[in-house]
């Protein structure tokens, strides 16, 4: 019984020190900041690789973006040993909001090898941070959406999956929810996801596919398929700007609010000041306030 997996990923600004550049006002300098495979996308690829090791799954990776986004596909292939890389790239796709992006990704996933049983996506992008594209793609595909997944196991015979989800809600303790669903499903992987390989055979398979992933990603071009809007067969009114209900109307600096506290400014090089600071801190800790 085969298992066909898709991973959808995103090329994002690299927030690591030395690669990220900020303007003097604290905003991101996009021109100077390098790009990389988004960290949540990398976790999605890691979760897919678990299926490669455990179930010998076939993996396809897809992304929508400019031609340079093939770099992210290569990086994802290095992680998950994909047999197929899809880049959906067309000027018509530019300016898409999440709904229009989901339309492209849905159409792309339907063109991947086999019938896709599980789609993995990251939790959210580091730059956009909406977390909407995953569930919207799932709904368009008609797949059951499972978010914040931290662990999963597939029953190949019954074609079902069991996942653990981390539900966090302000004002409540975290909850781990175990869910069973028939395939196909769409999984948004929680940032805290970790793959565990317990048995010797799993670890051997892990080594084998790691090596294969290295070789494949060194030659990623031979696995790469690039689709424009026409090749993908999307309806041009459902993608890019025409297919986006939302627009960015304006971007402004968040005005400085009224000061909530009046700070006493102390100088660290003055030992009297340090003494005063520590006394205040101790006072705060010692005060008896019933919470």
């Amino acid at each position: 019984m085969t298992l066909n997996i898709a991973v959808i990923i995103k090329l994002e600004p690299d927030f690591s020190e030395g690669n990220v550049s900020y303007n003097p006002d604290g905003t991101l300098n996009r021109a100077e900041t390098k790009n990389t495979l988004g960290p949540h996308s990398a976790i999605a690829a890691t979760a897919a690789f678990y299926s490669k090791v455990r179930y010998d799954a076939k993996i396809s990776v897809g992304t929508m973006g400019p031609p340079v986004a093939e770099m992210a596909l290569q990086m994802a292939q290095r992680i998950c040993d994909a047999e197929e890389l899809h880049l959906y790239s067309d000027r018509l796709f530019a300016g898409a909001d999440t709904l229009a992006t989901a339309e492209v990704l849905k159409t792309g996933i339907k063109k991947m090898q086999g019938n896709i049983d599980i789609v993995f996506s990251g939790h959210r992008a580091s730059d956009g941070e909406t977390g909407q594209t995953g569930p919207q793609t799932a709904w368009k595909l008609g797949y059951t959406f499972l978010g914040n997944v931290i662990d999963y196991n597939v029953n190949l015979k019954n074609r079902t999956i069991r996942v653990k989800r981390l539900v966090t809600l302000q004002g409540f303790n975290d909850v781990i929810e175990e869910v069973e669903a028939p395939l196909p499903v769409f999984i948004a992987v929680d940032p805290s996801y970790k793959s565990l390989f317990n048995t010797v055979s799993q670890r051997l398979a892990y080594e084998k596919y790691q090596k294969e992933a290295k070789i494949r990603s060194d030659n990623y071009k031979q696995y790469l398929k690039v689709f424009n809007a026409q090749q993908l067969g999307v309806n041009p009114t459902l993608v890019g700007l025409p297919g986006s209900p939302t627009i960015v109307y304006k971007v402004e600096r968040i005005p400085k609010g009224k000061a909530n506290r009046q700070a006493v400014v102390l100088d660290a090089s003055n030992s009297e000041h340090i003494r005063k600071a520590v006394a205040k801190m101790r006072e705060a800790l010692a005060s008896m306030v019933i919470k």
Partner: protein
Amino acid sequence: MTDGSYKHVYVVIELESGKLAPVSLEMLGEARRLMDNFNKKYKSDEKVVAVLLGHNVKQLTKTLIDHGADYVICADHPELEQVRNTIYTKVISQIAQDQDVAAKIANSTPKFIKPRYMFFGADTIGRHLSSTVLVDLESGLASDINKLEVSDITLTHQNKTGGKPEVYEKTLEMYRPDFSGFLWTTILCLDNRNPTIKRDYHPQSCSIIPGVFEPIKPDPKRKGEVIQYTPKIDPKDLKVKILSRKTIKSEVDFDSHKAVVSFGRGIKDSPEQNIKLVENLAKVLGAEVGVSLPISKKPFVVSQNLSSTYMIPDRVIGTSGRKISPMLYVAVGISGAIQHVAGMKDSEFVVAINPDDNSPIKDECDIFIKGRMEDVIPKLIEELKAQSTIAQA
């Protein structure tokens, strides 16, 4: 479609274990304020409608009315006890398009199509539900909003208006702070009026950051109506089963510590050593360690141990993390982006350590120690030890 086909604001209520999540009442509060202004400005009478899904939840409807709802559409059903995305999405979407339900809401007839606006919580429940519901309703969505306004907007836009100026009345301006915390992006959800791609996009919807808006003062005399709704559930969707739910306590425990020491991007000059400094300060204070959002994205290379202990989402203080209120909060190398401030502003006493006295954190602290953490923290630790020795003597 005429403007009259889209009416009211629908607020999707969130529950956990049968209790109202705080964000539910916060959303109702903001919806109430927004629609009161709206009705005054446009001389109309559009309603705040709470959409409540669950099982044995009828007793909650009064609380929702007391907190600002004019109507509560209540879908009470055993299969709605827990949130399952597919079932919940379909039921919410049915409710939003149900003519019979709308007919029970004053001033909706005769041509209600969908709600004008729709609110969800920006959390584990609402983030996903809002996404799927809005695909099903074929409209747009802005996420993580912390300010809302309604205005008439004149726009000339190549796609939306075909390059001609158009007035979009009663448009919801949805403000979302970006990841840096310094920029506000206003998102609009607008119909395509360009004749070649004409399409209606309603409801205008958003997910709202928990902890931002205030609930209104509950008024037990407020009048409101409950509309019972019988959901249509497809048996096929019941194959998705919730097998178990276990409450867990995070290893990161902000609640039982009197003090929290957090660090941000200011550790950058020597990340590894500086995290250790923060760790030491926390130890002396008996504090839990928190971080700002950028740190959870692991922007610095430090040892695996430090990275997996500290640079994790579980420790983030702010809108996309925890909201805390310790006796003492120490912000080390944190600039004070609004997302962070939202998570720590209820602290009893706040100390900030920062070399830049122009950074916004200065307006959010009681003591601002100007200096580099490398210089300040060792002095603080030394002095803390000295003073506690004296106290014990």
